[in-house]
């Protein structure tokens, strides 16, 4: 990921020489470090940061530090920085998380965090992570991420949060569980003796006991106040009179003292302090650029200010970057506001310096603060590519939305980028409207090679590709909305505008065109077009993009009944990945997942499991955005094939939640997959409910996109006939199947043809007409044999076993039929074995086979997550099993469940 990481945010402030040793607080931090979280919560100026750095210096644990700023309210950026800070103590961790964050649609935060937690677990030592200034983060998503992290905090990790306000975390729960250690304002205030030690020992002032007491009372032990008071007194002979007027005044402590301190500084220092207070970070050259005063050197000024203890904090060891203490900066800014200096001008100069030094984010920030919107718009326009690549849509969108709208509309490039960013975050309508803004400029300009006078374009090279970019964006939009003819029209226009040899440029509209053909059911054209586009990516070195469409190619082959070729498609992409070396590219896990499904279809459960395991092992980092959804569907299929229908449904529910509309056609909707399982369970009411809800009828016009649903509808009708015996149901099913067969054959979708023939055979069988059943069965067997299909027959269970035996006696594909019958027999044996194996359960409601399996793994000491990985089930599914186990055993927790199960003889007693 190319997010620029500012090292200064990760700088662990070293302990400062000459500070008050606060052993009572250090001791409390040490004790608290055995808990999960230390919360240091107090207003500005209470010495939070100093205290932590003191404690860390004397503690033998390595520490990662992260100073937060407003930008970290963007969860992606927050996580990127979190990883970057952890890398300061464990250089090789977080690779997975970074590549997840680097995908165009990052997976849910929870799965990113799970990956991170697994990687953190590899850190061998106890360590500390400090999040400083957490109050600046104002984002529910970041709070939630942190709460999740705390819930699953690895035992060797301790988290410290320093903040001015209580964070939005489950603090009371942590307190009750003894997982929280707290230091608050009352703890952090200087006690009278600490105040004395500070004023005399550290600041070298010679004060009477009364003076010290008076200062301590006036500041109420507020460290920032005492420090400013001490600086004010350092240059004075008559400390007592200062103390008298200070303590006699009602002025807000800091307001009074900053005035005093500034008053003691030379004019040039005062100007420097006020002018540079607009900067979040300072370095010599930046200060020079902001001040434009050739007589002063920024670097020297900064060193003088540091030397004079004027609330400046170094951000690195080289004394290059500094920042003012936040409180001091706030007071300086208020005074700057009062002065005659043009604050806008200062921000513009800062923006200019940042731009010259390649720091776009800061350049944009200062331009926006200065309300120099023209400048900001240009910078934002130019930053799009980099921000898009590093997936900081949220931050980029925040910038654009801060611009006056007419300014955005006057910029075609900015409008197109805005459109893409909006579409990326799922705001399709808003995206389309921005696209139209950009387009209007093309309509008014005859010559599209040069920007016209009224429009604003900063990147002329990008401008020349504007018509292509717009057409591609339209194609994307149309494809997401399921408007196939729109996709085809726009994608073709983009392709027409591009030269034949612009392989990369043609790849995006080409891929969209391929997806549109796919959706319309023209699988040959779709395959050819998509494969060409992916080759375009490959030729231009975009391997991740090149392999991202593999499952599309393979899925088409599966529908065409070409399993072997689908397998070769995945294997080819895997070879491409191997050639790139380690670590595995994003999307690699999908290749194994795809292979797993194909091996499962061929009846090789072991190989399927191996591939599934391999895809899991690759870690979620080798996945792309739709991974959680695809992985759930694949696991559901595996559970279904193993007869675990409840688990399959749980996984499909999860998949349904995770599904996001994308340009990839949804040719196997999850709801239809669920209905197939319901039919298997005999849940006719639910299955009919689905058909009704989807408005499906046997009289529907047929289309490829709904073909899968119509095949499931035929299954529902057959189940209805089986259960209720109404002739109408079976006749309708047969009629529908005949039409479906014709359509699938016409489209060359032999995979679908095989399934339809199987259903026709079963329908005849249901009506007791075995010899009529044999005809479609024979055809399906002949088509399926060379491709090695197994599940498509075996899934149908006993009726299929009967039909295959009959086929065997008729000498139909004898080897193949024999193999299928053996598989069916093994499966029947397995389920018999399963249903008789449970021990006697003296329970009102006995545990299911799966629940027993989970309980055994609990007894072996596996965590829920480990169990979910072992059984290829979603974590939530395991939790659901746990709840049911606890309910049936009338216990509250895992350990009690094991004890109770042992005492009841459900689990063997421990020796």
């Amino acid at each position, binding site marked *: 990921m190319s997010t620029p990481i500012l090292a200064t945010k990760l700088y662990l402030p070293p302990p400062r020489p000459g500070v008050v040793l606060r052993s009572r607080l250090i001791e409390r931090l040490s004790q608290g470090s055995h808990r999960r979280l230390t919360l240091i919560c107090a207003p*500005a100026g209470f010495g939070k940061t100093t205290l932590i750095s003191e404690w860390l210096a004397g503690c033998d644990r390595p520490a990662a530090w992260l100073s937060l700023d407003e930008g970290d309210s963007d969860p992606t950026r927050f996580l990127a920085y979190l990883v970057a800070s952890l890398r300061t103590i464990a250089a090789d961790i977080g690779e997975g998380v970074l590549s997840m964050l680097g995908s165009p649609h990052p997976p849910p935060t929870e799965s990113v965090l799970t990956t991170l937690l697994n990687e953190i677990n590899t850190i061998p030592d106890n360590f500390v992570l400090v999040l400083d200034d957490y109050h600046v983060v104002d984002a529910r998503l970041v709070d939630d991420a942190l709460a999740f992290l705390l819930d699953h905090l690895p035992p060797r990790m301790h988290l410290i949060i320093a903040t001015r306000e209580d964070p939005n975390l489950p603090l009371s729960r942590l307190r009750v569980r003894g997982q929280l250690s707290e230091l608050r304002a009352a703890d952090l205030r200087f006690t009278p003796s600490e105040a004395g030690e500070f004023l005399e020992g550290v600041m070298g002032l010679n004060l009477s006991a009364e003076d010290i007491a008076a200062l301590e009372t006036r500041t109420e032990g507020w460290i920032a106040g005492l420090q400013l008071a001490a600086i004010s007194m350092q240059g004075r002979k008559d400390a007592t009179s200062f103390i008298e007027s200070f303590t006699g005044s009602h*002025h807000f*402590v800091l*307001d009074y003292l900053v005035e005093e301190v500034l008053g003691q500084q030379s004019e040039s220092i005062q100007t420097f302090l006020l002018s540079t207070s607009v900067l979040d970070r300072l370095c010599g050259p930046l200060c020079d650029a902001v001040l434009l005063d050739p007589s002063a050197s920024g670097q020297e000024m900064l060193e003088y200010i540091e030397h004079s203890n004027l609330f400046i904090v170094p951000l690195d060891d080289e004394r290059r970057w500094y920042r003012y203490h936040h409180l001091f900066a706030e007071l300086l800014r208020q005074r700057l506001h009062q002065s005659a200096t043009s604050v806008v001008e200062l921000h513009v100069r800062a923006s200019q310096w940042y731009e010259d030094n390649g720091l776009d984010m800061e350049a944009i920030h200062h331009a926006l603060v200065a309300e120099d919107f023209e400048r900001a718009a240009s910078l934002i326009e130019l930053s799009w590519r980099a921000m898009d690549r590093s997936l900081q849509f949220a931050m980029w969108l925040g910038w654009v939305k801060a611009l006056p709208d007419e300014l955005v509309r006057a910029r075609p490039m900015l409008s197109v980028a805005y459109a893409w960013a909006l579409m990326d975050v799922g705001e399709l309508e808003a995206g389309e409207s921005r696209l139209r803004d950009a387009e209007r400029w093309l309509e008014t300009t005859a010559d599209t090679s040069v920007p016209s006078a009224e429009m604003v374009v900063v990147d002329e090279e990008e401008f020349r590709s504007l018509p292509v970019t717009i057409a591609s964006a339209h194609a994307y939009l149309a494809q997401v909305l399921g408007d196939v003819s729109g996709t085809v029209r726009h994608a073709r226009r983009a392709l027409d505008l591009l030269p034949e040899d612009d392989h990369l440029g043609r790849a995006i509209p080409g891929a969209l065109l391929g997806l549109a053909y796919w959706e319309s059911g023209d699988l040959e054209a779709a395959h050819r077009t998509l494969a060409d586009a992916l080759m375009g990516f490959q030729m231009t070195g975009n391997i991740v993009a090149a392999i991202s469409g593999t499952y599309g190619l393979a899925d088409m082959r599966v529908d065409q009944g070409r399993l072997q070729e689908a397998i070769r498609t995945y294997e080819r992409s895997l070879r491409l990945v191997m050639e790139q070396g380690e670590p595995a590219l994003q999307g690699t896990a999908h290749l194994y997942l795809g292979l797993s499904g194909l091996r499962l279809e061929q009846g090789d459960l072991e190989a399927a499991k191996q591939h599934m395991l391999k895809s899991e092992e690759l870690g979620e980092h080798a996945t792309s955005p739709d991974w959680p959804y695809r992985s759930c569907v694949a696991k559901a299929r595996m559970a279904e094939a193993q007869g675990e229908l409840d688990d399959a449904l749980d996984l499909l529910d999860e998949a349904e939640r995770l599904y996001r509309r994308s340009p990839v056609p949804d040719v196997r909707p999850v709801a239809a997959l669920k209905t197939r399982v319901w039919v298997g369970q005999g849940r006719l009411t639910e299955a009919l409910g689905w058909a009704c809800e989807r408005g499906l009828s046997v009289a529907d016009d047929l289309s490829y996109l709904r073909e899968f649903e119509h095949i499931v509808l035929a299954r529902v009708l057959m189940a209805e006939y089986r259960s209720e015996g109404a002739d109408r149901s079976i006749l309708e099913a047969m009629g529908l199947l005949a039409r479906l067969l014709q359509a699938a054959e016409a489209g060359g979708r032999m995979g679908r043809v095989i399934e339809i023939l199987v259903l026709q055979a079963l329908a005849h069988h249901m009506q007791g007409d075995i010899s009529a059943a044999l005809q479609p069965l024979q055809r399906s067997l002949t088509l399926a044999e060379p491709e090695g299909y197994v599940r498509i027959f075996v899934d149908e269970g006993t009726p299929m076993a009967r039909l295959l035996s009959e086929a065997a006696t008729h000498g139909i594909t004898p080897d193949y039929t024999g193999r299928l019958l053996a598989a069916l027999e093994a499966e029947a044996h397995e389920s018999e074995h399963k249903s008789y194996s449970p021990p006697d359960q003296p329970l009102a409601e006995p545990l299911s086979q799966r629940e027993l399996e989970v309980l055994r793994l609990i007894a072996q000491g596996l965590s829920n997550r480990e169990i979910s990985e072992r059984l290829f089930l979603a974590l939530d599914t395991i939790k659901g099993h746990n709840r049911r186990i606890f309910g049936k055993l009338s216990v509250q927790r895992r350990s009690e469940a094991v004890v109770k199960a042992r005492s009841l003889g459900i689990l063997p007693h421990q020796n």
Partner: protein
Amino acid sequence: MSSRLDQPMVYQIRVKGHLGPQWTDWFGGLAITLEDNGETLLTGPVVDQAALHGLLRQVRDLGMPLISAVRVKPP
């Protein structure tokens, strides 16, 4: 008077310590009244809840002890 909280309302924020009149700008035009007991009252219309929270955040970031924040009827 509407009591809906998304309407502009007059708020009175009481902090500890006296602030000079030059702070008026900083606090978005709120009137500054100094009380004899050493407290400062910031009084004025606040557009909505978000603005109120922003104001309280400003007070927090100055490290000013906040004593109270109340909604008052406009005069």
